[in-house]
């Protein structure tokens, strides 16, 4: 008998004038000791399924139809108090962001003990003993000592272990994990997934893993349910669904996943999900403002040469130099970026890759070392006019499309600002024409100019960012995790756009990402960073097929395996 049975579940959110159906007639079940993956893109309703099961639907959402059974017993209609007793006791939950899931003012011990004592009748001492055992079981070293600490004293991965321990406090039969590894680095992700898999089979727990990440699905799940706009489009054994997807949505979703094992020239365009934009009026770059009059000085050799770059931040200030403490974010890094190539920088969070981007653009002043752009050393520029001239040639695209656009400016103004600032056009009429062309070219359409950023989705906003970056007619583009906040299908579109633009405009790119698969698709050469040091620089294929540095090899083995995923769609692309 299955642990969890969801039958024809429908969840509705009444809005002012209409009713939004977040989950539409979904039926699922999980056996003990098995892992079910629920996959879909943002807004597919996958988290809502999890919240409905645990009885924590956000107001005014409610279950409008269907039933939820736990071990054959109906739980969706229980009164509030009994439903609360179910939570934690029989159903555990793991949240996405370990940094915010724990109460910052309470020790780990008090949070564990209060949860244990809520559900099991144990004395304070027994509860503490159990808490220590749990902390040990989730793989935190020194449990006796660490249990008395506060959440901020743990790293992100360790905190997620604590969250898992909390979810397992009272031996629940079912655990719902909502994006359990999305906020973590690959190496930590691999460890956490390993741990979840182990606990699941050891304790015979049924687990529902909600994620947008196909890699996670392929890695740990036994069954998978694919959701699209609240509906279940495909459901079955993971090997079958990923290896031979039947539904066109699943097919396109899988084909959009960047793969570390195969290199493709372009990502297959997935029109099933979000239209790539209004029909584009392509402009002829060779005659257009954007392409011509690129009055750059001729450069022979690499465009950017970085030599012995160092950056340290003061962690503790003091008037005595000997008492100051520093954090070395970047340690003597040197590399070249050839003209017209895409140079990738990969590494985990805190490895210093974004710090390098900021030094190149001049947002940070390096502690020592030089950044040569052509023949000019960017670190020695004093004159404001020279600095501006350099900045015009390089532009940056940021990670978060939500906070990198000024919410109070119209899109056309956002894009026109750099043109006006650098006086690149002769009059208002010309500026307007250029802005319209840019909007068309990045696939948004001229009408988008009159709107404000909040009217666009994440992917569309990233297109606006790209248009803004192109507006100074740069020759060098720095992309700092440009797609990590986006769904895979949107990511595929944005990456395609970047590739096209690079080809048309002969752009040189510095592409920063934590995602090896994306880097493989985008870059000609790749540098691997760790703790502020550059471990290895090599050509893309060489890095993936014959990695030199031990850390690179480690990173590659940690990546979720994509072997299961169907190759069918890729071959045609």
């Amino acid at each position: 008998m299955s642990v969890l049975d969801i039958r024809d579940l429908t969840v509705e959110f009444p809005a002012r004038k209409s009713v939004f159906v977040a989950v539409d007639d979904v039926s699922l079940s999980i056996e003990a000791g098995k892992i079910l993956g629920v996959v879909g893109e943002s807004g597919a309703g996958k988290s809502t399924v999890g919240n409905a099961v645990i009885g924590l639907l956000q107001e005014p959402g409610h279950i409008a139809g269907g039933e939820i059974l736990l071990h054959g017993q109906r739980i969706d209609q229980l009164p509030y108090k009994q439903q609360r007793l179910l939570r934690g006791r029989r159903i555990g939950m793991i949240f996405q962001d370990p940094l915010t899931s724990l109460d910052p003012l309470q020790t780990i011990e008090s949070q564990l003990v209060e949860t244990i004592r809520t559900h099991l009748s144990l004395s304070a001492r027994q509860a503490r003993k159990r808490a220590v055992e749990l902390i040990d079981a989730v793989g935190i070293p020194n449990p006796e000592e660490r249990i008395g600490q506060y959440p901020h004293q743990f790293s992100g991965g360790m905190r997620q272990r604590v969250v898992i321990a909390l979810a397992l406090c009272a031996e629940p039969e079912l655990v719902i994990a909502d994006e359990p590894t999305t906020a973590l680095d690959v190496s930590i992700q691999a460890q956490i997934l390993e741990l979840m898999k182990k606990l699941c089979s050891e304790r015979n727990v049924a687990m529902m893993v909600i994620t947008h990440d196909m890699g996670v699905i392929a890695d740990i799940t036994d069954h998978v349910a694919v959701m699209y706009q609240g509906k279940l489009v495909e459901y079955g054994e993971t090997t079958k669904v990923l290896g031979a997807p039947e539904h066109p949505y699943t097919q396109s979703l899988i084909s959009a996943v960047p793969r570390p094992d195969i290199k493709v020239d372009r990502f297959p365009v997935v029109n099933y999900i979000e239209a790539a934009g209004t029909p584009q009026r392509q402009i002829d770059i060779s005659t257009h403002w954007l392409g011509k009059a690129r009055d750059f000085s001729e450069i022979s050799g690499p465009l950017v040469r970085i030599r012995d770059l160092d950056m340290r931040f003061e962690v503790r200030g003091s008037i005595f130099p000997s008492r100051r403490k520093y954090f070395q974010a970047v340690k003597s890094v040197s590399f070249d970026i050839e003209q017209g190539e895409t140079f990738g920088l990969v590494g985990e969070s805190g490895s210093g890759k974004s710090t390098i981007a900021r030094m190149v653009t001049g947002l940070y002043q390096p502690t020592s070392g030089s950044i040569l752009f052509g023949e000019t050393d960017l670190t020695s520029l004093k004159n404001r006019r020279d600095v501006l001239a350099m900045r015009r040639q390089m532009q940056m695209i940021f990670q978060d499309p939500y906070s990198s656009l000024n919410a109070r400016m119209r899109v056309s103004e956002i894009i026109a600002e750099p043109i006006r600032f650098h006086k690149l056009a002769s009059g208002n009429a010309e500026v307007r024409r250029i802005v319209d062309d840019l909007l068309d070219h990045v696939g948004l359409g001229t009408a988008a100019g009159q709107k404000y950023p909040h009217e666009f989705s994440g992917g569309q906003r990233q297109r606006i960012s790209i248009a803004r970056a192109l507006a100074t007619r740069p020759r060098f583009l720095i992309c700092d995790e440009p797609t990590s906040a986006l769904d895979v299908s949107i990511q595929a579109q944005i990456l395609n756009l970047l590739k096209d633009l690079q080809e048309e405009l002969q752009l040189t790119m510095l592409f920063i990402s934590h995602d090896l698969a994306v880097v493989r698709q985008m870059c000609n050469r790749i540098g691997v960073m760790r703790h502020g040091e550059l471990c290895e620089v090599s050509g893309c294929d060489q890095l993936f097929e014959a990695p030199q540095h031990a850390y690179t090899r480690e990173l590659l083995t940690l990546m979720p395996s994509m072997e299961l995923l169907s190759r069918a769609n890729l071959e045609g692309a």
Partner: protein
Amino acid sequence: MIGFATRRFAQAMIVMLVVALLSFTMFRFVGDPINQMVGIETSLEEREALRERLGLNDPIPIQFYNFLSKAVRFDFGTSYQFRQPVSDLFAKRIPATLELSFTSALFALVVGVPMGIFAGLNRESPISKLFLSVSLIGISLPTFFIGILLIFLFSVTLQWLPSFGRGETVQIGSWWTTGFLTVSGLKALILPSITLGLYQMTLIMRLIRAEMLEVIRTDYIKFARARGLPDRLVNFRHALKNTMVPVVTITGLQLGAIIAFATITETVFQWPGMGLLFLQAVQNVDIPIMSAYLLLTAFMFVAINFIVDILYFLIDPRLRVGRP
């Protein structure tokens, strides 16, 4: 922790020095102190002798030093109007002001905190909406008007409570007088402390409500619910404690404000406290009292801020315990 406390203490000292300088400047340079002290018929020689005796001919830094060394011994000179040492006058008045301030602060906390918690947790309830509308009155009506309104209602019309003064007081120790121990003293406290505390109460209530709404949305509260913890634990142990840092800040500052700005309430209720003394001093250009009042209120603000800073450490482990 000790380093932090020392730093804050040093900053507090700097603030006090600056205030003392202001206070000294006022004392020394607003009008001629001799003219304020003596009558018209005093001869020039006598004036000069007095000037010499009071040290007004000394270089300015020495005068400031003397002023400071006297101030730390609570010697602020002699009041022009009462011909009594300023410190004696304040000693008589301070208990009245402190008792009034603490009662109204207590009122603001005891009523404001539960109302804020309730309104934060039951956002849609009609009672919360009632609290909010009523609190708008507390914020928008000026203090003196509320005071007069209360006097009109409870003293004039209903004749339940006295309209002015402290009632009977009891002497404790050498200089503290308290109204807490007599019925008339307690009755006399009610109206002025409500008047003084109403604004703070609404402020605290709205602040706690806003903070609660914020905290309730966080992941750790959702996670606490998902672990099946009873509402009592979720709301009080997890949510309330996390709203405390801003609440402690504002409450501390407001306590300072209550003490410093009791002036209006004390005037309306003819409450024999420091504020009333100060107001009379302003009317009579009694500079020693004014400068002493300035120093005293500044001292209370600084002391309360210092305590608030230390409280942060007790509340928030992120400040107390470093990262590994």
